[in-house]
């Protein structure tokens, strides 16, 4: 490996470690992946089908239109890349997944639509953090470089970008999210340990409506679990113990 390549990667890692804001992390990351032909990227916890499309994002330069389409059409139910994340902890390319066994029409549709949005080539880096929490850094482009050297560099860069973004998010906390009246009521009962069904009974709404309110709060706060939403809401003084 040439020392020019080494210096490039080391410079990127250094810039990431020093980045004072998530915006800066994004900028450094973008410059690094663009060298390989990647133009979009996303670092987030993968959406879990049973919870709908809640996906706490750490940083992204991801097409809003695509995200809306993905959510509206519930592509997370059939996305072969999400399935791959359950199968392996190692980085993988979209090509490798696409080339594997035949895909169902639903799976194929997700991949075809992504291509329509200019996302033909992709590379995904699964990252397991403290406590086993999974985040994935996904990057896409029209025709990116994905040889083994490129993959190794991108793997390393993704890890440092994730770590810095996580650190900054922890340090600066979750920005205050103003709860809507019903959300506040539902979350307050959840804080006392009530289940969605019980909350529904208490407030005269359906169980799924109660569930939906909590999911909305989680998404707007950018947290992954109910407990985190409760902790944040307490911290922000919007619910009480």
């Amino acid at each position, binding site marked *: 490996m040439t020392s020019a390549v080494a210096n490039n990667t080391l410079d990127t890692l250094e810039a990431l470690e020093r980045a004072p804001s998530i915006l800066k992390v994004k900028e450094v990351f973008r410059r690094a992946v663009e060298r390989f032909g990647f133009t979009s990227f996303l670092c987030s916890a993968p959406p879990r089908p049973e919870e709908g499309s809640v996906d706490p994002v750490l940083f992204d330069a991801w097409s809003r239109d695509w995200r809306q389409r993905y959510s509206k059409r519930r592509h997370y139910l059939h996305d072969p890349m999400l399935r791959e994340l359950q199968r392996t*902890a*190692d980085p993988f390319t979209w090509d490798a997944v696409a080339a594997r066994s035949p895909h169902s029409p639903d799976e194929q549709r997700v991949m075809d639509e992504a291509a329509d949005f200019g996302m033909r080539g992709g590379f995904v880096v699964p990252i397991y953090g403290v406590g086993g929490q999974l985040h994935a850094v996904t990057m896409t482009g029209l025709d990116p470089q994905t040889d*083994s*050297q490129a993959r*190794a560099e991108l*793997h390393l860069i993704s*890890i440092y970008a994730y*770590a810095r973004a*996580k650190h900054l998010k922890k340090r600066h906390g979750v920005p205050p999210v103003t709860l809507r009246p019903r959300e506040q009521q539902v979350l307050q009962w959840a804080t006392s340990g009530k289940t969605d069904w019980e909350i529904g009974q208490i407030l005269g709404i359906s169980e799924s409506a109660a569930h939906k309110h909590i999911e909305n709060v989680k998404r707007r706060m950018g947290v992954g679990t109910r407990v985190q939403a409760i902790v944040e809401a307490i911290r922000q003084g919007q619910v009480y113990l």
Partner: protein
Amino acid sequence: MLHLIDATNRHLPKNQKLLEESFLVRHELYVKGRGWKALEKPDGREIDQFDTDAASYVFWADGMEVVGGARFVPTDKPHLMSEVFPHIVTFGSVPRSANIWEITRLFTSRGGKSAVNRRDVTSEVFCAMFELGLVKNLEAITVVCDTFFLPRLLEAEIDVKPLGLPTPYDEGTCIACRLPVNLTQLSAARGGKRGSVLFHIDAPVRNRQPAYARSDAHAAH
């Protein structure tokens, strides 16, 4: 309780026993547990060319049952990175210095009689690594490890620098790293949850004495 074994005290019967125990535990974990046949030896003791007098060991033992530990070899001697994995060091050359030690065989046992919390064991051995580094005036600790450890270390605010790119092997990818040794690192490793485990580090330098010395002196009576 943590024990430090090196050339100065490995001849003591208690330490010989602990060392022997550790070779058996390593066999269980690496040969039988992880299936690393290359490490298998006919006598069931996992011991390799780096288990010499140049090596130091930290063991967490519950009585005489070894439940966790790590091995350290000064990098100016032959060690794993220099002898077996030099090719994964692509940012510059393999660090070689009496003040840089490589850590290998960092393990926590599974099963056994001890009910000690294994997560605590792992954390304490990790803290012991930095305490040892500070007491021995080390510049850094180097390691070859699975790439998946990197995010966990970074998230715990441990400063770790890669010495090369992640390199594929049978079970995923591995990477050579360098961890600077300093009080900030020790503090990060402690995570605000524990105090000294091996050496009384919070004291000023001249008062630093090994935490184990008293128990060994006691045993010598």
